[in-house]
């Protein structure tokens, strides 16, 4: 076909009017000429007109053929189909609105969760091709240490083995920034210059670091993240080139990073980390390059064509080779040491990975339920439109025509649902961003972008296909003759449809049960966790962190002097009963577990050595938090570097490693040998069962000094007042010292559950929506069923059936549908719950009471949904009902 023809065809719908007129004129002219000729031959004018029309043939048929040639029939049919669809839907506004609202809710929730999952797990913003990045980790499997940062030596080995195309190292540090109204704590990450290339991070202004910035001593340069530029420097356009004071030393700002990079990847890595404010060059001194200085986060980019499988085997080969190197290699081998790589996305997803995937799966189930609901509604509408369908068939509408219209209507509903869903997703995302706890999304903004748009379109298409599939199959299966015959109520197509709808509702109930069981299991886990006694008394306790800059506090003596002064002054805060400093705080970030030895006990080969968490504390720590002393004594002011090394252990350690003897007086070996002087109660650490059963070793902070820690003050009264008093206490000693991360102990405890609580709340919402949709579906089916059986019910009642019997009959039917779904859903939930196992705490995957409760809730809702139509049935007047056509 020529270009011209195509042009004509494409432009046809637009010019339809004019060329139709053209054709009409042509025809008219033709007929006029024919009439004139006929008259010349001697016919009367009326005869002439008839003869002319006869000779011309069927004008309408010809026009139709002409139109087909002229335009694009499919497009025109499509447009016509849409016109018909709009008309037909506007005749059933209730159906249309309900469908669109349901779809909007389901699609919107799906899009929002997709966008969150995409940003959190698959496509961290601001990082190029995150799926080609790997994080390098080490492990000591015999020491129960499974994922550690690596040493410079490890990095050099991997680099030399040419496993990655490039590797960068990073290490996080914090600084006190003085220059604002009060000293502020800024979190920073020091990086080697390749960091920017490896991760694909670019500056918005200025430059990133290059090789020359890496000299010794490390150059005082800094990059600001966009958020810090806005927050700390008020978006000052002249910030680049300025000098700022960090820990009392000048640093020059060389650039500002793009806003999408939040830099949440810390040493532990991952979402939920505190977002970074600064990026500084990392220079590693010679004395830091030892084998055992395992303190660097390493990220490598995969070379083109490299796969994670090949990386894994290369790392294994390298590990095996390093095991062979001398005595050191033998020790490494003995401890089960090894290097390995984790795909960046797995690493960065962190603890939110499983909950996010659970939410994603759940919201997918909600979409399925919504589609099933729409399919049910469509079937119902088909029944209501039986006569229309019959007439259309009789007038020559093929089954294909009917199907086409079914699809068009469904596509239109899905499209409207998707568009409304975008609005729902927007609200959903903003709500989540506003109410999600900081440690769940870590400053990340959930994008509202083209990928989400694409996913929304996909969800819309899936919904359209799913919801049309069953009605379409039913339509194809129905005999055209039965469509025609279907004036009466007993026609098979209608029965078939009702059966299908019942089946769909059962499926909805099953899906809703799965969600309810899932939400119930997680809720019970959460309440178990929250009811676990933390081992301490959080009431009236305020905590805040500080870090003393090396420049001012050169040695342990100065640090201890500061701490003693601080505690003495803190106790003068009105109402204060006790004050202490510790690192780490209970329910705060801190060290990973450490191995120790017990004096006099042989080391057993291939057995993990004893493990414990370590906490450095000042004497009043236990009193401030109400941790009970069970045996021996606590630390005193006299336990210092000049006195014998002492340790306190908790009940858990005592029970595990000294089950039949008194640990007090025993010696244990960590970096040095110390004497156990007391046993205190156990405190839980986080919400995971695994780490909460690891015991604690307490070490006097005055013996083993750290330049950073947290101030704990126990004082009744208003938390905000106490916090201000603590800040001024610190500044009375040192006006340049920042006190940051102020939280009550209760807030810290709550924060450890916030991710779980967030998941449970969302899952609970999804479960509620799914129950509502299933109830709606059941109500629809039962209501229709009652209408269909009006006559039958009338006859039954005329023959003496009591209203109670009728009520029972209808309720029983609804119950059967729901029960089928509950049984089906129960099996599915049993199977799915098993995969939730590691998210559960204190509750089995097959928790009978949760399953029973979910079943009871759904049964109750189902009976309620059935009760309304059932009651309507009992109120039927038998005479009217029998007469009803």
């Amino acid at each position: 076909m020529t270009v011209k023809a195509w042009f004509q065809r494409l432009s046809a719908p637009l010019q339809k009017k004019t060329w139709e007129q053209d054709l009409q004129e042509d025809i008219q002219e033709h007929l006029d000429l024919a009439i004139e000729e006929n008259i010349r031959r001697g016919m009367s004018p009326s005869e002439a007109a008839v003869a002319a029309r006869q000779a011309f043939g069927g004008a309408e048929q010809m026009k139709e053929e002409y139109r087909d040639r002229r335009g694009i029939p499919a497009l025109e049919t499509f447009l016509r189909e849409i016109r018909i669809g709009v008309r037909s839907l506007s005749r059933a506004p209730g159906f249309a609105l309900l469908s669109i609202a349901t779809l909007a809710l389901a699609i919107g929730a799906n899009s929002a969760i997709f966008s969150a999952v995409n940003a959190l797990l698959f496509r961290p913003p601001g990082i190029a091709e995150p799926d080609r990045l790997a994080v390098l980790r080490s492990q000591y499997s015999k020491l129960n240490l499974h994922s550690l940062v690596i040493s410079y030596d490890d990095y050099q080995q991997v680099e030399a083995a040419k496993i990655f195309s490039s590797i960068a190292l990073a290490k996080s540090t914090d600084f006190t920034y003085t220059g604002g109204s009060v000293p502020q704590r800024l979190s920073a990450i020091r990086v080697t210059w390749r960091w920017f290339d490896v991760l694909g991070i670019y500056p918005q202004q200025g430059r990133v670091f290059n090789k020359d910035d890496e000299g010794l001593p490390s150059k005082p340069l800094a990059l600001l993240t966009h958020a810090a530029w806005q927050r700390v420097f008020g978006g000052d356009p002249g910030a680049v080139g300025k000098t700022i004071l960090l820990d009392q030393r000048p640093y020059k700002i060389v650039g500002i990073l793009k806003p999408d990079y939040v830099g949440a990847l810390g040493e532990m890595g991952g979402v939920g980390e505190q977002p970074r404010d600064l990026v500084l060059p990392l220079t590693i001194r010679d004395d830091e390059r030892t084998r055992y200085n395992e303190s660097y986060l390493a990220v490598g980019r995969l070379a083109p064509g490299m796969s994670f499988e090949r990386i894994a085997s290369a790392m294994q080969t390298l590990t095996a080779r390093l095991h062979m190197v001398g005595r050191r290699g033998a020790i490494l081998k003995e401890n089960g040491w090894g290097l390995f790589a984790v795909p960046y996305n797995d690493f960065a997803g962190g603890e939110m990975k499983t909950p996010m995937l659970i939410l994603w799966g759940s919201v997918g189930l909600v979409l399925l339920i919504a589609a099933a609901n729409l399919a049910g509604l469509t079937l119902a509408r088909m029944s209501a439109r039986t006569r229309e369908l019959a007439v259309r068939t009789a007038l020559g509408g093929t089954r294909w025509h009917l199907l086409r219209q079914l699809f068009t209507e469904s596509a239109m509903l899905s499209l409207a649902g998707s568009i409304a869903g975008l609005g729902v997703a927007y609200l959903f995302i903003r709500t989540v961003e506003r109410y999600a706890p900081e440690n769940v999304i870590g400053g990340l903004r959930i994008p509202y972008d083209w990928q989400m748009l694409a996913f929304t379109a996909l969800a819309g298409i899936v919904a359209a296909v799913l919801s049309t599939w069953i009605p379409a199959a039913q339509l194809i299966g129905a005999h055209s003759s039965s469509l025609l015959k279907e004036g009466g109520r007993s026609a098979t197509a209608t029965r078939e449809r009702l059966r299908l709808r019942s089946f769909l509702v059962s499926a909805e109930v099953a899906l809703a049960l799965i969600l309810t069981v899932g939400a119930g299991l997680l809720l019970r886990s959460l309440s178990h966790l929250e009811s676990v006694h933390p081992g301490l008394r959080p009431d009236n306790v305020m905590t805040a962190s500080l870090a003393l800059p090396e420049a001012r506090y050169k040695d342990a003596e100065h640090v201890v002097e500061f701490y003693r002064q601080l505690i003495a002054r803190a106790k003068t805060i009105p109402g204060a009963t006790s004050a202490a400093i510790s690192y780490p705080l209970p329910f705060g970030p801190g060290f990973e577990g450490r191995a120790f030895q017990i004096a006099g006990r042989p080391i057993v080969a291939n057995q993990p050595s004893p493990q414990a968490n370590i906490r450095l504390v000042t004497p009043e720590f236990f009193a401030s938090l109400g941790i009970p002393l069970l045996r021996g004594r606590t630390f005193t002011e006299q336990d210092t570097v000049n006195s014998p090394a002492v340790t306190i252990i908790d009940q858990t350690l005592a029970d595990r490693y000294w089950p039949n003897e008194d640990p007090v007086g025993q010696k244990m070996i960590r970096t040095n040998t110390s004497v156990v002087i007391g046993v205190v109660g156990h405190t839980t650490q986080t919400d995971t069962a695994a780490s909460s059963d690891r015991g604690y070793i307490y070490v006097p902070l005055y013996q083993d000094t750290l330049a950073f820690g947290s101030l704990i003050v126990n004082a009744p009264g208003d938390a905000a007042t106490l916090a201000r008093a603590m800040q001024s206490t610190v500044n009375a000693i040192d006006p340049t010292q920042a006190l940051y991360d102020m939280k009550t102990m209760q807030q810290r405890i709550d924060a450890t559950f916030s991710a779980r609580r967030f998941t449970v709340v969302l899952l609970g919402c999804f479960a509620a929506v799914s129950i509502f949709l299933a109830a709606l579906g059941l109500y629809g089916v039962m209501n229709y069923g009652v209408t269909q059986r009006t006559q039958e019910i009338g006859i039954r009642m005329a023959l003496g059936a009591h209203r109670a019997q009728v009520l029972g009959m209808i309720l029983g039917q609804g119950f059967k549908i729901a029960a089928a779904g509950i049984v089906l859903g129960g099996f599915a939930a049993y199977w799915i719950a098993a995969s939730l196992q590691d998210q559960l705490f204190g509750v089995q995957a097959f928790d009978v009471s949760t399953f029973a409760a979910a079943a009871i809730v759904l049964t109750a809702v189902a009976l309620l949904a059935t009760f309304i139509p059932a009651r309507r049935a009992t109120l039927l007047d038998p005479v009217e009902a029998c007469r009803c056509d």
Partner: protein
Amino acid sequence: MEPKAEVPYGTLELLILRTLETMGSVHGFGLARRIEQTSGSLMHLNQGSIYPALLRLQQKDWIKTEWGASENGRKAKFYSLTPKGRKQLKVEVENWERATALVARFFQAES
């Protein structure tokens, strides 16, 4: 009345092209009448059916249209061959002859 033959399938376009070749420029009615006259009343033509065929030929660029005055002095659309159409007619005639010759050969062989 003796039943008239319908226009053999696919030949209407050929008849139109051939008629336009002899008549030059002509309006729709004239074209239809001429085809009827030439067929000597042996063939039944729905006069209207030439219009979709004319559109097809136009889309192939074999004929062109222009506005002119009809016998009664009113505005009418006149159809005529394009050079491309003239060339195509030869090809079509040859194809037709080849096809009929082929069919004829079968009939001879049968009888």
